[in-house]
Structure formats: C-alpha cells, structure tokens
C-alpha cells in the first residue's frame, strides 16, 4: 500500500502532463494568437495615421502572408494546438455534469459556460478556418478569403457570402459575433482558471483580484472583437475593393518574387470568384 511509484511509470504522470499541456496550449499559442488576430481585425476600423482602415488591414495581412513557412507555422503553431486543446477539452468536458440547476452560483455558471463556449467555439473556428483559410466554400452561406483583397472578402464572408440573402447575412453575422464573444469569454475565463490551476493565485483575495483583471481583459477583448465585427459589417465593400486592387497592382508592378509566389499560392488555394 505504501509502495512508491512504479519505476516503469514516466517521471511525470501522463494524465497530469496532458492536463497541464492542455491548459498551457489554451494560453500559448492559442490565446496569444486570438489576441493578435482580434486586434489585427480591429485595425479595419481605425487604421493607422494617414491610412484608411482597409489599407492598414491589408498591410497587416500582407505582413502575415509574407512570413516564411507560413503553412508550417499555421499547422504546428495553430491548427494542431487548437486540435489538441479542443479534442482533450471535449474529453475533459464530458467528464463533468453541470449542475447549475441546483447550484446557480457565479463560478458554477462560468464553469458551465466555459464548456459550452468550448463546444461552440470549436464549431465556429472550424467553420471560420474552413471557409476563409481552406476555401471550403461549399459550406452554406460561405465565401472564401483573398489575401490581396483582405477587408472586402472578410466583409463579404461575414455577411453570408458572395450572394447574401437577408437570412444568410443575419445567420453568418450572428455566428461571427457570438463566436468571437464566446471565444473571448473562453479565453478570459480560461486565464482566470489557469492562474488557479497552476497555483499562481492561491488566496481567495488573489483569485478575486485576478478575476477583476480577467474580466477587464475579457471586456476589452470583447470590445475589440465587436469593433472589428462592426467595422466589417459596415464596410463599403466596393470602395474597399478599389483600394485593395490599387494596392495589389502596386505590389504586382513592383514584381517582388516573394509576393508573386504568395499570389500564386493563394490563387491555387482559394476559389476566387472574381
């Protein structure tokens, strides 16, 4: 009964290691990426000094797409971590049974909501990445993303595709807004529980104060996300297309090899309907 650990066992027990990696993955790289992604998106609204939002956003996108080995970064830095975090997350979530019906306390609601936003967020991310990155435009109400026409294609996508009906626009728009807010909640609350899980916030006071900080962070991120959403929903698509075409033409004329490669690459990958 008091035998010490079996020597055949790994130094750190696998279930614990997986749990901790799961927790870490939510923060790094996924959380960090979400923060970056939402702020980039929000740039469509304010823009940089002297430039319009569309231009700034296009610049950001160009920068990202100019990164070497982008696909590998995406696979190993994003898609696999997200898959890891999601699949384990589903498994862990299924080990719990929410009881807010009897115990309707704040923390218990947050616990339930964390799991719900996990499920919902996963579906949203899948749809989002599939349509805008992988070009699965056969999905309902969807259109693809063109890295040269970043703002306009994004705006179209969240309004329900190239030929939107009112229903499509509403559904996809709502999906995006709720999806973004769900993920922001998931991240902010995850940040709060992360600190408990890892033993950073121990005392009740520390947990409460960190809770305020996470709430602040969540609200800020929600504002950023909403701002980007509003920006894209209200974007003048035709004007944006003009700006983007102009910028693209400048780039093509400059005949930068890297960009050409990128352009070819993208043309192969996305269904460009224009």
């Amino acid at each position: 009964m008091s035998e010490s650990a079996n020597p055949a066992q790994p130094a750190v027990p696998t279930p614990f290691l997986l749990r901790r990696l799961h927790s870490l993955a939510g923060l790094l790289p996924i959380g960090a990426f979400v923060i970056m992604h939402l702020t980039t998106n929000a740039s469509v609204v304010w823009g940089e000094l002297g430039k319009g939002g569309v231009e700034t956003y296009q610049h950001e996108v160009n920068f990202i797409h100019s990164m070497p080995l982008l696909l590998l970064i995406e696979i190993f830095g994003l898609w696999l971590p997200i898959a890891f975090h999601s699949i384990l997350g589903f498994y862990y979530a299924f080990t719990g049974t929410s009881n807010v019906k009897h115990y309707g306390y704040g923390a218990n609601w947050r616990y339930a909501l964390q799991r719900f936003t996990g499920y919902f967020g996963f579906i949203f991310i899948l749809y989002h990445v599939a349509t805008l990155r992988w070009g699965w435009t056969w999905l309902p109400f969807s259109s693809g993303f063109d890295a040269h026409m970043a703002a306009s294609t994004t705006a179209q996508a969240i309004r329900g595709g190239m030929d939107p009906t009112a229903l499509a626009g509403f559904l996809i728009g709502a999906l995006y807004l709720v999806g973004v807010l769900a993920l922001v909640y998931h991240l902010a609350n995850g940040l709060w529980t992360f600190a408990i899980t890892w033993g950073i916030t121990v005392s009740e006071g520390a947990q409460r104060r960190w809770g305020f900080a996470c709430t602040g962070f969540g609200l800020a991120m929600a504002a950023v996300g909403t701002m980007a959403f509003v920006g894209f929903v209200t974007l003048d698509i035709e004007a944006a297309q003009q700006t983007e075409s102009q910028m693209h033409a400048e780039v093509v004329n400059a005949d930068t090899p890297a960009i050409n490669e990128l352009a070819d690459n993208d043309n192969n990958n996305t269904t460009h309907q224009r």
Partner: protein
Amino acid sequence: MTTATQSKARTIRFKIKRSDGPGKPSYWQTFNVPVNKGEGANVISCLQYIAANPITADGTATTPVAWKAGCLEEVCGACTMVINGKVRQSCSCMMDTVAPNEGDTITLEPMRKFPVVRDLFVDRARLFESLKRVKAWVPTDNLWDLGAGPIETPEQHEVRYKLSECMSCGCCMDACPQFHKIEDDAKWQNAFIGAAPISQVRYFNLHETGATLKTERLNEMAAKGGISDCGNAQNCVKHCPKSIPLTESIAAVGRDTTIHAVKQFFTGK
C-alpha cells in the same frame, strides 16, 4: 402539544424521496409535521416525528424514513442530505428559518453522489477510502514518549486548524459537477477525488512530520482522478459547512503539484 402553544403551531409538508434499497426504484412520499415556532425545530426533530408517526399526508401507513444522524451539532457530518435541492446538514436546518409559514414544503433527498443504502441514508465509504489514497496521516514512529511535536507559529496553526475542521461530510463532493456517483468501489481509485481530500493533502503537507509523505501525496494528486480533474466551479467552497477555504487549498496543492512535476521532469525523482 399544550393549548398555550397552539397559537404558534403550524404544519410543514415534508416531501421525501425514498428508496427501499440499492437498485430499488425511488419514490416520493409526503408527510405533514406539526411544528411550534420558537422551539428550535429542525429537520431532525421533524424526521423523528415522522419515525414515531409513519403515516403519509394522504393517510397511508408506511415505514419510518431511514436516515443517518450523529451529533446534531454540525460537527460529525452524519446527517448530510439534499434539502430543497441543495446539499447540507439536516441538523442545522432550522424550521423557523427555512419554513416559517403554515403549509411550507421542504423536500428531502439523499445525497446525489453517493450510493443510497435506504431512503436518505447513503454510503460514503468512498470518502474515507480517498483519505487512504492521499495518506492523510502524520507518520509518527511509535506511541512511546518522545517529547513534543514540532513547534508551530500561531499563523501556521490558524491555517492548519481551519483545514483540520473537515468532518468528511461530503458536501463539497455532492455539489461538485466534476464528482460523480460510482457504485463500483474498484473504480474509485481513478475517479476524481474531490475537494476535501485535496484540502487534506495541504493540511498534512503543512505539518513538519506530515510533510515526509509529501512526495507520495503529490504523486497521487498528479495521478488520474487527482487535482487536475478540478473544473474550478467552486461550488465546494460555497457548500462547506465549516467554511474551509477549499478553493485556496486546491490552488495551493495545484502550485505544489506543478513545482513537484517540474522537479520530477528534470530530476526524474
């Protein structure tokens, strides 16, 4: 009983979820219990009344309701049950507070996360088994006279004393969405251990001699069903009748387990 107290008498309806034994279906019965204001009636005194008068509200003769009780002062943990949907001790559930008016209804159910023996009587053996899992004891050498134990500051005492008040009632587990009812005792070992034993890990690791088993306890915390199964719903701390800072214990043990695992990773020990 007497005419003088008639004026303060009222009837409380007890809706009780009963079951004749393990695996038997549950059923509800309602009992009317007369209660006088200001006499300190609680769920226990009402169940005692029902035991002496086992007749339901609709006049059906039945058997007395089975339930567990001990100290009736909320220090033994025996009489824990689910009252009006929430888990708590029944001895401290005072009628004048929870059912002040004529005809008020109280529902009683057995704890949800432990196997029912009969009616409101559940088997909490798993809880005590989990204390073995985490070696919840100080490994003294023997019982001979070897002088005093380690010196402890009042601050350390204050922390440890609070943790030592845990009476193993199981409220923290019953209210926890991550803790589930398991009838098969062979499966307890790998299932989530619950807040109380985690808090006991902290308690014993804080004692100088107790800490000699710290590694073994933290290994158990890192194993399947250990600390990382906690989902931070924090119902445990809300329902601890002794106000033990369970969520602090969970975070503190989480910190120790993290450090322990990092050390293990680099040293293999």
